[in-house]
């Protein structure tokens, strides 16, 4: 008798080459920038305006020739791209920080190219702070998505949660005259809405996607009705909350560029700074998070160790919903200053995309939301500095990026295994 020879590698992964997608994308985009923005670019000057005239420390504007700047940046990006190819050939992956540097460079080249010869120049503080403010509802919505999908409930109702939050925040804020009360009311309202999603999905096992879609339709219906039948006639007394005061943080807000962008904001932005890391910590470093993820991955296994699956799902979905309500409040009380019909305008669906783009991880989701925020402001700004630019294509970019990401990730990045699946005992 002899043992059958067991070769090493049997049952282990057959050699799979790391995907060439990332390096190819990086090189191709770098070539585009180098050729079209650089060699064939515009001959005028770019003025990068770093300061907002409010910081203590002022940086002088930076003026540079557009062709020269884009050629240099393009060449640098090409080097990063080639480095990525080299790493790939050696079987390595391109590190995330390298991609971040690349993204920053590409953004500067794009901004510069767009604003060549524009009198107002590239207003960095304006662009970045608007990016942040516009991303806030997406980030909160994305957190709601993470919290419910991590426990295995698909949340298509983010749109409705945002919209209900925006509505309630504006109305309650106006009636009580206290915006903080409005904000809390928004969280309660969106949280209550989420209990409908949670209980129908968890207790009655209704298809989660259907419930989500219908809750959106319901919230749109109700807010449209209340707006036209009640609020619109009496806006002054019902829908005129204004926005939260901006609170500049001492010292921090005087730092050039980032000071005004990050540290002179409304409470909604600061809450985001707190909640995102907090959610990350709870999810990956605490007992609550471990249990929640267990419920989302393998509910039966969680049940057999005494974790109450239904209760866990219910509370995570509900609390997630109230955070989305906060996102709604940040639309009205943190930006616009009043409620408008269907003002969430699909942000909830974008949040859904951002959740996937960010792989169900709070920090990445926040970055994804910022990308969308950036393109929203770009659409406005690009049209100002460079009229005639096809803004429709700029609008398209984040959606295309999401499509590419969703298509590219599939199979590599796994959503929570039990996402969308009801759990029945026995």
């Amino acid at each position, binding site marked *: 008798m002899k043992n059958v020879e067991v070769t090493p590698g049997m049952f282990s992964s057959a050699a799979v080459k790391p995907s060439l997608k990332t390096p190819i994308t990086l090189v191709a985009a770098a070539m585009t920038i180098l050729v079209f923005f650089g060699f064939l670019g515009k001959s005028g000057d770019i003025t990068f305006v770093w300061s907002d005239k409010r910081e203590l420390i002022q940086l002088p504007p930076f003026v540079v020739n557009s062709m020269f700047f884009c050629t240099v940046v393009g060449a640098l990006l090409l080097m990063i791209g080639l480095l990525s190819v080299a790493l790939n050939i050696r079987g390595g992956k391109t590190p995330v920080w390298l991609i971040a540097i690349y993204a920053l460079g590409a953004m500067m080249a794009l901004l510069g190219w767009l604003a060549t010869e524009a009198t107002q120049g590239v207003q960095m503080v304006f662009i970045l702070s608007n990016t942040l403010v516009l991303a806030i509802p997406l980030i909160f919505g994305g957190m709601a998505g993470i919290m419910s999908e991590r426990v295995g409930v698909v949340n298509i109702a983010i749109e409705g949660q945002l919209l209900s939050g925006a509505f309630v925040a504006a109305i309650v804020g106006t009636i009580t005259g206290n915006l903080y009360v409005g904000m809390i009311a928004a969280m309660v309202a969106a949280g209550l809405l989420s209990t409908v999603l949670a209980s129908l999905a968890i207790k*009655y096992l209704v298809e989660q996607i259907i419930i989500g*879609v219908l809750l959106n339709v319901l919230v749109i219906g109700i807010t449209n009705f209340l707006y036209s039948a009640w609020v619109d006639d009496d806006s002054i007394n019902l829908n005129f909350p204004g926005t939260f005061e901006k609170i500049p943080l001492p010292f921090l807000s005087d730092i050039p560029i980032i000071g005004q962008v990050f540290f002179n904001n409304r409470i909604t932005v600061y809450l985001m700074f707190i909640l995102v890391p907090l959610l990350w910590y709870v999810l990956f470093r605490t007992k609550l998070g471990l249990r929640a993820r267990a419920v989302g991955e393998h509910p039966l296994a969680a049940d057999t160790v005494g974790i109450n699956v239904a209760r866990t799902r219910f509370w995570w979905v509900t609390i997630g919903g109230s955070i989305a309500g906060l996102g709604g409040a940040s639309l009205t009380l943190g930006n616009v200053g009043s409620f408008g019909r269907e003002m969430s305008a699909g942000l909830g669906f974008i949040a859904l995309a951002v959740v996937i783009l960010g792989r169900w991880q709070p920090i990445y989701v926040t970055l994804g939301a910022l990308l969308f925020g950036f393109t929203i402001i770009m659409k406005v700004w690009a049209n100002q500095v460079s009229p005639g630019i096809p803004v429709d*294509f700029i609008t398209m970019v984040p959606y295309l990026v999401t*499509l590419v990401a*969703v298509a590219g990730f599939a199979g590599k990045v796994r959503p929570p295994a039990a996402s969308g699946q009801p*759990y*029945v005992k026995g």
Partner: protein
Amino acid sequence: MRKKKEAEVTKPAQDKATSVLHEIMAGDPVRIALSVLLGFIIGAIFMVVFDKNVVKAWADFGADPNYALSTVWWTISDGYGALFRGSILNFNGDEFATIIRPFTETLRFAAPLIMAGLGVALTFRVGLFNIGATGQILVGLAGATFVSTRLEMPIIIHMLASVFAAVLCAMLWGMIVGILKARTGAHEVIVTIMLNYVALSLFTYLLRQPNLLLEEGGGGTPKSDRPDGTARLGLLFGPEFQLHYGLIFAILAVVFYWWLMEKSTFGFRFRMVGHNPSAARAAGIKVENTFVWALAISAGFSGLAAANQGLSVDGGLTTSIEAGIGFDAITVALLGGSRAGGVVMAGLLFGAFKAGSSTMQVAGVSPEVLGVVKALIVLFIAAPPIIRAFYRLPVPGPKVFESAQKAKAAKVIK
């Protein structure tokens, strides 16, 4: 109560979930009727509570209780009465045409809802959630508009060519979803949502291009010319009615859908993939290809809706011509249980809501309340537990029979 518990235990989780979906699709008529009724009741409550006259009357309830109560009644009857007058029959009219016109308006509004609703319904039955009717309609509109405003052809042929262009463009757009899903496993919900936005931007871009869709002499606003007279969907019953040939396309679409899903082998395979893709795969069906085709055909129905919209307008087109039909189509398909007959009924109901909106507005009741009613009705249909709890209906017992003897007995009797 006890019975319910048993029912819950006997079925495994997966089975239970699909059975709920099937409960929706089975569409028990009593439950549907009760859902519609409850939707209207809650809608009435909304109307009353947010009506200024009613609120004022109830504020001085003591002064004139009869008046307070009667305001409630009048608000509801004004609202729903106007809805009836605007969507079914107008008895205030003095000639037949005026009386019957509201119903033809309902038909006119229902046609695109039914066509797009069939599209979404088809994907439901293949087990896909296609939220992309909006985008497919927009792309279809681009095709229809190009052919109907930029090409010259004889009458009828031009119209058919425009419809064909709408269907073809929409189908290609729908195929993208199928191909992405088949090739990469990307979830169709997220793909279709993204493609809706891309389609909106794309259509807007095309509408801005002078050599493509922009109206002659047009400037910054994305707007097209009016479709050529040769390409327009003609009126069915003369100038007194706005009803046009879109209705004929809707009827053809319904018949085709019914045949496709219930009678043809394609439908059999679609349904098989919808119920159990892995068994379908083992039975030699290319599931991925089925997804691609199902999404393409589904989008084709949306393309018909696009043609209906784009070839019936009097003025030039803007993106608003889509009119939320793509999103409404989802609710139509859900309410209709994804069956041909159900989709027709659901489309008529929602068409009536659209037709009745203007008369409600005139009657001083916000027609937006219909949005609430619509959402509630579909929610109640989709979530049977709510309606059961409200009306205290019994839970249907398990139809599973375990004992072989019983089955054997049945066999012997036969």
